[in-house]
């Protein structure tokens, strides 16, 4: 592998690891906010237990999302300084707004939500989880604006070999960003819904305590997952309208269309190979769509089955399958992301800056060191985090420590 491929691999490892966890964060935060709203408005103990149980899983998952997110924020400057130099004046503003409006506020308020449990007024505590949820969406929005710009650069002018932001509104309204945003947040709801239903099904199958918590959770999870699957597919379909000709040609696999896309690029940019890796584009796109079909059938059937209470309580084969389905939306997300990003190659900024030109002047040795280091650390942490998620999911609401007592009971000894 040459250095550019290593740099791409490193970005893919970081972004992929991040995506696995933030996808669940997006979906689970929303479900959590809804459940806590029920708990707070209805003064409902069962919903409070649900909030604490799903909240603890949310936090374990969030921890991995944030540490990979920290690394993400530095990846562009580290390995892709050619990109930041060339286009940073344009899409860097989306990244800046993301860190301030979303990341900063989300983390600050999540800290308050976790450590302020039983300490803050319960309405304030409820407001916090909604802010955390909305800022998670804001984060996805601004990241998709930045990514959409790389897919379909708009709102800029070229001056002296560098880009300048000419129309901020056009960059934000970029269809390649807007459609992808709705596609991704709906997919996040699919991930969250299948996760909630799958964990609940485990407890129903094992006939553990707290049947009420898990019957309700299963219904919420699947009830959200089904419409979310359709929304995801709808926006995914619209996404094809915003797709680059070369990506579409690679997806179709049609030799004539590929040749036409190549000829068009050669005419515009001179000789070179301008086609994305056809095999990867087709494999990832096909995987995403097959998994979509599987999820649609499963969620559709499940939504019918869950109308009948005895089925929800006792149909163990269905419970077992539902738990097995938990990884499927994650795989579909990763496949969809690979489809989008492989299809953009060989460009970093489509039609303007090639990936080979975007890289930092970093030596092969430095790049090898960092790829191995990030890969090792992330692999270990992901394994530990999934083990921990599974452990806490299995142990059920009785073992939850989140919000079980006032944390740091106030005493009249102010620090400052």
């Amino acid at each position: 592998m040459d250095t550019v491929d290593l740099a791409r691999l490193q970005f893919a490892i970081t972004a992929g690891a991040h995506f696995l966890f933030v996808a669940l964060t997006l979906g689970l935060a929303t479900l959590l906010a809804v459940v806590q709203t029920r708990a707070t408005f209805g003064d409902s103990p069962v919903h409070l237990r649900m909030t604490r149980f799903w909240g603890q899983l949310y936090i374990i998952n969030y921890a991995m999302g944030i540490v990979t997110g920290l690394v993400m924020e530095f990846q562009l400057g580290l390995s892709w300084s050619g990109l930041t130099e060339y286009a940073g004046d344009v899409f860097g503003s989306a990244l800046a707004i993301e860190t301030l409006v979303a990341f900063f506020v989300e983390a600050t308020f999540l800290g308050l939500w976790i450590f302020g449990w039983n300490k803050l007024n319960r309405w304030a505590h409820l407001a916090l989880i909604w802010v955390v949820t909305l800022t998670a969406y804001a984060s996805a929005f601004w990241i998709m604006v930045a990514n959409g710009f790389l897919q379909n650069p708009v709102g800029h002018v070229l001056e002296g070999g560098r880009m300048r932001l000419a129309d901020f509104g056009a960059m934000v309204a970029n269809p390649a960003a807007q459609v992808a945003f709705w596609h991704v947040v709906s997919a996040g709801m699919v991930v969250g819904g299948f996760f909630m239903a799958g964990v609940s099904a485990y407890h129903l199958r094992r006939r553990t305590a707290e049947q009420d918590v898990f019957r309700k959770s299963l219904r919420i999870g699947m009830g959200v997952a089904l419409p979310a699957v359709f929304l995801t597919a709808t926006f995914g379909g619209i996404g094809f309208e915003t797709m680059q000709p070369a990506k579409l040609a690679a997806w179709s696999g049609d030799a004539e269309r590929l040749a036409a896309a190549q000829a068009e690029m050669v005419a515009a940019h001179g000789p070179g190979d301008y086609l994305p890796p056809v095999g990867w584009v087709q494999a990832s796109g096909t995987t995403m769509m097959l998994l979509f079909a599987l999820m649609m059938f499963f969620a559709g059937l499940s939504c019918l089955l869950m109308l009948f209470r005895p089925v929800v309580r006792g149909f163990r084969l269905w419970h077992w399958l539902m738990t097995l389905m938990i990884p499927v939306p994650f795989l579909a997300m990763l496949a969809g992301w690979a489809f989008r990003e492989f299809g953009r190659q060989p460009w970093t900024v489509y039609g303007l800056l090639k990936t080979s030109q975007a890289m930092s002047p970093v030596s092969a040795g430095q790049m090898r060191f960092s790829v191995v280091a990030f890969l090792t650390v992330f692999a270990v942490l992901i394994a530990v985090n999934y083990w921990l998620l599974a452990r806490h999911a299995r142990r059920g609401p009785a073992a939850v420590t989140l919000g079980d007592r006032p944390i740091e009971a106030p005493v009249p000894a102010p620090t400052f």
Partner: protein
Amino acid sequence: MEIFILAFFALGYLVLAGADIGVGMALPYLGRSAAERREVIAAIAPFFLGNEVWLVATAGVLAGLFPELEGELLSGNYTVVVVLLLAWVVRDMGLWLRGRVPGARWQAFWDGAIVAGSWGLALSWGLLLGHVLLGITGPFAVLPALVVAALFGTHGMTFASLRLRGELRARAAVLSGGAGEARTYALTSAALVTVGVLAGLRLPLEPGSAGVVLVPVVLTLMPLLVAAQAWVWWTFRHRVTGPSYL
């Protein structure tokens, strides 16, 4: 104005998150038993998440307002920045995971990750600041790195003495001596700010062209961000009385 925004977030990070780094470095000294360590961690627990995002914001401000400098600074110090990020990840996972499984060995392992990660953070900050400020690389770069690490450590110990009680507070106050905890904290904060400002002055602070749009947005946001953080500081203004969720 671009420079003011960058300085605001970068210096805010050094002062606020610097204390978390220092407490992590001093964890084996401050907390001699598992229970004590948990209480020491409770001193920073509600803050560390809101503190570390000041650096995320700094990275965002660099990306939006100083894209050329962002690339130069990060890729020009590639290995140090990679080590800094890895140390940060290890420290954070230590904090998040230590309390999630009961068991002495699990907690001792992740406490070790917190200490190693905090030292890694402090030393890589030292190397980075030493390189930017004094242009030192190679074996001698260890000297400024150790000075910066000592500064983070002192700052963290002083913060711990402001947050803890009893025996733990006395241990943390060993460096402040008779000067008083609040005064020492002000002093170490000022020292960190000074190092940060001096290093900043050595950087080529040429803003990009996005400021026309971005500066008003950021200036509008800043009071809201500070207010959100102030809510955290106010909620957890009391001394630690027991273990936290971590």
